[in-house]
């Protein structure tokens, strides 16, 4: 064996590791929630006349939970994809409006009451959905981000696929792309619907 080949092989090994490491998205953290029941919640929806909504209402259906907010910039990229997807009626998409009213939205020196927050969140979200299209069967309002914590949300948008038994089957952190829908989400939904 030629001796100069040893450092060369080590070098290429290192390059290999770096190539794999650099092509990974450090923001993508495997969620411990996949395979676990979707955490329960009971939240107001955008429709003031509608009753509170929780994951139990979707028992027996395969559905998608999409975390969004009108202040979320990446959601603007994702939104048209979801609107187009919802027209195909593959599965119901439930929106989770995450912390719609931010602390800096409040008037100086005063905190919003929960009622004010709810009202403002409804107004803003409805207006935004009217302007950009509404892919959601309904949208619940997680005003203080408590439900977001239970779902391990750390960056909006996030998307979950939940099966008929209410178990989380898939989680996506970041923008859902048409490619991702076709290659991963749709096959999974079809499989879950069949079972």
């Amino acid at each position, binding site marked *: 064996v030629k001796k100069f080949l040893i450092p060369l092989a080590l070098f290429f090994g290192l390059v290999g590791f770096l190539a794999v490491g650099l092509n990974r998205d*450090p*923001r993508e*953290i*495997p*969620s*411990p*929630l996949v395979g*676990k029941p979707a955490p329960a919640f009971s939240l107001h929806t955008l429709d003031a006349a509608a009753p509170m909504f929780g994951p139990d209402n979707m028992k027996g259906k395969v559905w998608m939970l999409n975390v969004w907010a009108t202040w979320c910039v990446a959601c603007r990229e994702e939104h048209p994809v979801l609107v187009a997807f919802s027209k195909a009626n593959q599965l119901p998409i439930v929106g989770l409006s995450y*912390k719609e009213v*931010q*602390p800096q939205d409040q008037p100086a020196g005063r905190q919003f009451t929960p009622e004010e927050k709810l009202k403002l969140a409804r107004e803003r979200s409805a207006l935004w959905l009217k302007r950009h299209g509404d892919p959601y069967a309904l949208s619940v309002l997680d005003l*203080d*981000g408590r439900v*977001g*914590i*239970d*779902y*391990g949300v*750390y*960056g909006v948008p996030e998307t979950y696929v939940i099966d008929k038994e209410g178990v989380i089957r898939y989680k996506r952190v970041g923008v859902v792309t048409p490619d991702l829908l076709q290659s991963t989400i749709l096959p999974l939904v079809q499989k879950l619907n069949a079972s």
Partner: protein
Amino acid sequence: MKLNAQCLKMMAVLAFTMMSLSTPLQAKEAALLAEDPVVETRLIHISEELRCLVCQNESLASSRAELANDLREEVRKLIRADKSDAQIKEYLVTRYGDFVLYRPEVKPLTWVLWFGPFLLLLLGVTGMVMYLRQRQSDGPAKQNLSDEDRRKVQEILKSGDAS
């Protein structure tokens, strides 16, 4: 003119004294503003071991991200509910995964992480020892000089001295 200069000097001294006095006063105020100090101490202790998920190289204790704020509030609630440190960490791990822990649990999945560096060190040391031993056993044979060589060396050294 002279009076004016002295006046300025006095004012500077006064300003400096006030500034140096006001800093500890402010610190005291901030400490008072914080809620239950026992809870806060525990919060800092726990959250230093937790990673902020938004800015991944910051601890939950030092991050100013909004999510970190929310999570600190959540940890405060758990502390007030008399949960143990282990229970609080478990609470966050079930939601965000092992990634939130700066010191992940030792389990089969994290063995490579915990023991990998030591394994690499062991491999390196073994390789080095093997290499050195080989060189040592090869070495003397190569260094064996014939009497002729020694004589030449002496000659060269001597001629070096002369010049």
